[in-house]
Structure formats: structure tokens, C-alpha cells
């Protein structure tokens, strides 16, 4: 079974993507990433310290098997995000970008209007864009139209560990999308991650649930297995959930007697 998938021109073996915030130390983050076997890791530009070479985050991430995904967390508007994207491209030497525009600092709700504007501009500048957005099927198609490399709809509010509250919309997005769908935000447990994979998302991004667990390395390992299991189940083609037991004598059996 070939479990690989592609975003832009890069092939990924692991479908578990990771965030780098909230860890108790750089070492703890590194060990969790190793255990997750993740190949795509997002890091906030605002946390990157370019001057001193003692950056606790980047020093652990500069490895050939890891695709760095700088994010624009902190940007409130499209123009701030575009400027941040250009700085991130320079600082982290990659044109991959997790586009995050959340003017609301409390719940970090993405601004769909500014995100679409920024995505259009950044695509023209050659960025490989993965936008963090609401689970809005129309927005996903609009982003696809302007050249996004993937879409990252949220499962529930970021950091909430509430699971896939948006599941009905996620299913529509997965059904319609021509770019990879990565469920980002809200995934609180390995069973949430497995569910996300079972419904056919291409990957998930997990941060809070791993970073704030008592044992991040073990949690990362658990998520890895869950993502693999969920994907395998999706590929196996699970039978649909049955709400009622099947009647043993079919209601339409009389038709054969006519």
C-alpha cells in the first residue's frame, strides 16, 4: 500500500504534521517531533530569533527530512501577512507558508476575507501556501481558485482540544477539494486524529494536545499510530455506519411473488 501523498512537489510519508509552540523546552519539542515521525513542522516567524544563533526552536528543526512551514501568527491583515511571509521566506529559506491571519487574539479565529486576499497575492509571488481557515467549503474552493497548495480547515477552535466539531463541513470540503485537506486546530486526542483520517482528510496538524500533555513524546507516538490507523481504515473502505438493524425479511420481498 502506498501511503504517500504530495503537497506541491513534495512527497510526504507521514500524515501527521506538528506545531512547535507550547513545549516546556526545545529538547522536549525535539523528542516529540522525532517520536511523531512528522515531516512537516510549522513554526511562528515571531518566535524565530535570527540574530543570535541560539534559537531554541530552529536549531532542532533544520533537518533534511523535515519541511519547515513558517507561519504568520500575529498578522491581523493581508498586508501584514504578506510582509511577514516575505521575511519568513528569507529567514527560513523556504517558500512554504502556513498563512494565518487572525485579528482576534482570543480565539485566534481566522479572517476569511483577508486570508483570501493574501493567498492570491502570495501565490503570484511563488509561495506554497497552506492557509488556516474556517471549515467553509466555499472559501476552500475560492482559495483553490487563487492557487493555494492545500487547505487547512479547523476541526474546532484552536487549542480547545474539542475534536471535530465541524465534521459535516469537513466532509463537504474533502468531497469537493482538488488540493490536499489538512485538518488543523482542535484535535485533542488520538481518536480525533484517527477520525479525521477516517473521513478522508489527507493529513492532520497537532500541537496543543501533544505539547501540553504530561508526556509529549509518548503522546506524539500515540498520535502517529492513530493517524496511520485512521488512514488505513479510510483506504480499507469501511462499511457505512448502520443506524438500524437490517430487517431479516425484506419489506419488498412481496415483489417477487407478483
Amino acid at each position: 500500500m502506498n501511503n504517500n501523498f504530495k503537497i506541491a512537489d513534495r512527497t510526504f510519508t507521514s500524515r501527521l504534521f506538528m506545531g512547535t509552540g507550547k513545549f516546556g523546552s526545545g529538547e522536549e519539542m525535539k523528542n516529540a517531533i522525532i517520536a511523531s515521525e512528522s515531516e512537516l513542522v510549522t513554526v511562528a516567524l515571531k518566535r524565530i530569533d535570527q540574530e543570535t544563533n541560539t534559537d531554541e526552536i530552529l536549531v532542532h528543526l533544520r533537518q533534511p527530512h523535515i519541511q519547515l512551514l513558517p507561519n504568520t501568527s500575529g498578522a491581523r491583515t493581508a498586508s501584514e501577512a504578506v510582509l511577514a511571509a516575505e521575511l519568513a521566506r528569507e529567514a527560513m529559506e523556504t517558500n512554504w507558508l502556513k498563512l494565518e491571519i487572525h485579528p482576534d487574539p482570543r480565539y485566534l479565529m481566522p479572517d476569511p476575507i483577508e486570508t483570501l486576499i493574501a493567498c492570491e497575492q502570495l501565490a503570484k509571488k511563488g509561495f506554497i501556501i497552506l492557509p488556516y481557515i474556517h471549515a467553509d467549503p466555499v472559501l476552500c474552493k475560492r482559495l483553490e481558485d487563487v492557487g493555494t497548495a492545500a487547505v487547512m480547515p479547523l476541526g474546532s477552535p484552536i487549542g480547545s482540544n474539542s475534536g471535530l466539531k465541524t465534521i459535516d463541513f469537513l466532509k463537504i470540503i474533502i468531497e469537493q477539494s482538488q488540493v490536499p485537506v489538512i485538518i488543523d486546530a482542535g484535535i485533542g486526542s488520538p481518536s480525533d486524529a484517527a477520525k479525521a483520517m477516517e473521513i478522508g482528510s489527507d493529513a492532520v496538524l497537532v500541537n496543543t494536545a501533544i505539547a501540553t500533555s504530561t508526556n509529549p513524546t509518548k503522546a506524539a507516538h500515540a498520535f502517529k499510530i492513530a493517524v496511520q490507523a485512521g488512514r488505513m481504515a479510510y483506504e480499507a473502505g469501511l462499511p457505512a455506519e448502520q443506524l438500524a438493524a437490517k430487517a431479516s425479511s425484506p419489506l419488498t420481498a412481496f415483489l417477487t411473488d407478483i
Partner: protein
Amino acid sequence: MKSFKAIFEGYDWDSVKTQIAAVTQHDVERALSKEKLDIKDFITLISKAAKPFIEKMAKRSQRITQQRFGKNIQLYAPLYLSNECQNICTYCGFSMDNEIPRRTLSKAEIILEAQAVRKMGFQHVLLVAGEANKTVGTPYFLEAVRQIESIFPQISIEVQPLETEDYRQLHQSKVNAVLVYQETYHKEVYKNYHPKGKKSNFNYRLETPDRVGRSGMHKIGLGVLLGLEDWRVDSFFNALHIDYLQKTYWKTKYSVSFPRLRPAEGVQKPNFHMEDADLLQLICAYRIWNPDLEISLSTREHELFRDNLIHLGITSMSAASKTNPGGYVVEPQSLEQFEISDERPVSIIVDKIRAQGYQPVWKDWHPEYTSEKEKD
């Protein structure tokens, strides 16, 4: 124009005090059983009746903080620009009636101090000044920011209340946050503590966070001077203020600080004593009520308290602070605004943070996020 004043005037000090005193343990249990707490629940959590629940509150505060902010503690240091002041404040070492040598740092001195702060590792600096509008006003602050913007990615200010246009200019010049404390919301006695100077105008100060909010500033820090008046009542008003601001200027982040009155040259003693357990209760109450609030703890607090608070709800700490202009290198002997309590060097603070399994965060801002003109 819409401001907090209208909401504030709907309350009076004594009724709030009575309301806090009437809270029962049953009320506390009910508040703590809720998933989302409102401002009425905040009253419950700061009451005396909530005292026996401190362990439960601390556990919840820790959990919420880790979920929202992770195991991270942001570090910053104050840089005092000037101790010139035309206000009389009965609790402050810089009060105009104190006969101390006055000093305002020159451009060259600001750079020297900034480099010293940066050398300790800090990338977030808090610029502080007394109120001397003619010599230390917005043009001076803009110039100060220009001197240090290449040294610090994150610059906050704690200076006299200014106009919206001043805040707009400061924000465009890459100031990220404005801290302004009401000191006390007890309007009737406010004037006794601030008998002279522009600061004696209670309402102008009360509406300052509104003016900051209108400027599009990224963060506003509030607080009350704990020890002036009944901390429970003052903290209710402070929370009410934050609640209003969060709904009105919803793109702005909010932080709260807990300046407990400290001894200073020529100043009176606190009217109200606040125990360590009270301050912990207050911090946990803020956190449980408002999971997104940044909570800062300065070197006013003593070592043991600070070390233990790292994992109980706070999100940022200052370290190795000097509260006198030139205190780091230019003129270390000059008089301080207040005596700090935790005098340990930065390396020790960093070790204490790490020992609790937390990560010290030096940089969490990119100045380009404040470079844009805010759309009105």
C-alpha cells in the same frame, strides 16, 4: 464617543464591596462548576468565601494556562527613561514633591541602557517614564523608540496617558503594547492619592485604555496598585474594564499586572495589606475567568512567590530590573521608583523557569506586524 466611563458610572464602590462580602461557599462551588465564567463569577472567585478553594483554583488555573499558553514564560525588562514628574502621587518615589535628583536619559544614554538590557538576553523591553509632558512627551518617546528599534523586536511603553493620535504614532513606530494602570477605581479617594498634576484627573486616566484601543495598538496592559484600597473591589473594576475593552477593541490583546505597593523613598505605607495567598487567589481568579489574558509578575514580588507562580497561571515575568533612569549602566546609584524584591540575575530566573519544566521565551514578536497603518 463610546468609553468605559458610562459602564463604570453604573456601579458604585460600596455596593460592589457589599456584593463581594455576601458571596457564600455555595456560590463559589457553583461558579467553579461552570465551564465559562462571567464577570459575576469573577466576583465570587475573589471573595473571602473562595479562600478555602485556593488549591482547586490553582489546579484549574495551571491547566487552563498550559492549554492556552503552553509551558512558556515570556521575559522582559523595564528601561526607565526619566524620573521627571509633575504629578504628586503619595505612594511613588518619583512624586514631584520628593526632593530627588531628576534625570532624563539622552539618546546616547538610552542606547547604552538598551544595549545593557539586550546583553542580558532580553528582546522585549518596557519603556517607563514619569509624567513631564513638555520634556518627556510623544516626540521624546518616538525618538527613544527610534534609538532602540534595531535592538529589540518587542517594545512596550508605560508612560503618562496620551491622546489617541500619540498612540497611533507610537504604534506605527513599532510600539507593541501600552501599559496604563488606573491605580485605584475608588473615585472618591483617588484625588487624595493624586492631589496635584495631570494625573489627578480621574476620568482622563479612566478613558486612557479607550484612547489606546482606538489607535489600533496590539496590546493593552491594565492593573491596580494593590495596597491603596480594598484590592477585591479594585480588582472587580479592573476586570470589568478589561471585559468592556475586550468586547470593544476586539483585535487587541490584554494583559494584567499586579503591582503590590513596595517601599520607596519618601512614601507612605500601604493602607491595605495583601497577603501572598490573596495575590495567588486573585491571579487564579483572573485566569479562570479569562483564559486568554496575559498575566505578568514583576520583580516587586519576592523570590519564593515568583518561583512558585511560574506554573500557576502567569505568562510573563521581568527579571533583574532597575527602576531608576540609567540604572543598568549609566548611573546605577540614582534613586529608584520603588525597591524591587527579587534582585536575582537573569540566569537564575531562567534556571528557575527551566527547573519547573517551562521554557523561557525571549522573543515572541515581529516588529513588522506593527508597521502598518491601522484602517479606521
